[in-house]
């Protein structure tokens, strides 16, 4: 007899966000999946990191 339990659903895109057990942070335009590093940064929260990267890129582009 076939199982008739509740159908399991995946949250949107969940299956595509793992590569070899690693979380994918994003995919570059040339198709490379950038993986989440092991452990977080020592001196930055994720929010600080994103802000610092964006700010440095704007500053150097303006030069």
């Amino acid at each position, binding site marked *: 007899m076939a199982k008739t339990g509740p159908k399991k659903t995946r949250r949107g895109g969940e299956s595509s966000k793992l*590569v*070899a*057990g*690693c979380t994918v*942070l*994003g*995919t*570059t*335009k*040339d*198709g*490379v*999946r*950038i*993986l*989440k*590093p*092991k*452990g*977080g*940064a*020592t*001196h*930055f929260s994720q929010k*600080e*990191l*994103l*802000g*610092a*990267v*964006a*700010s*440095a*890129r704007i*500053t*150097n582009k303006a030069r």
Partner: protein
Amino acid sequence: MNERDVFINCPFSADYREFFEAMVFAVVRSGFTPRCARENDDGGEVRIDKIYRIIAESRYGIHDISKTEPDPGSGLPRFNMPLELGLFLGARKFGGKKHAQKKGLILDRDLHRYQNFISDIAGQDIHSHDGDVEKLIEQIAAWLRDAARDLNVPGGRAIAAEFKRFRQDLPGIAASKRLVTAELTFKDLTAIAAAWIIADSGMT
């Protein structure tokens, strides 16, 4: 063993810092996870045990044995890189079926120089970077593309051009936390590289 983990075995001295940053950047940009003995500052874990663990967890290894000069303080050369290379090769040889799949890239300044100081590794995959960061990145990208059979790994010259811009931004990123780049840890560097690459690519 993680299929995307790359054990980085290289000097951590100030004069090698740019090469170290280039290795981390190239590995992240190629879609892999860099691992190294500096990834965890847990004082409770004995250093050699940490290295055993990271080697056990890594499918790939990049070993730069180019630094053979005596340490200015002691007057003796540092043997950590050849030791860790030996552990990696030992794991591959004696670690059973799973670890026999490990692949390693050995880098030196000149292609045949190793024959004068570590000739037993003849027959391994040995490449030279000629003391040039761009060439180092090219070697890593080409090797990862081939070793992992991953055609998505970008060309080395393209990664090297991105690394140059990344390095220009790095002091500003460090300064946001009142740090200089030399104070950024391996974990900082890896996280910054990943965030920068995603921002640079315009994709999330």
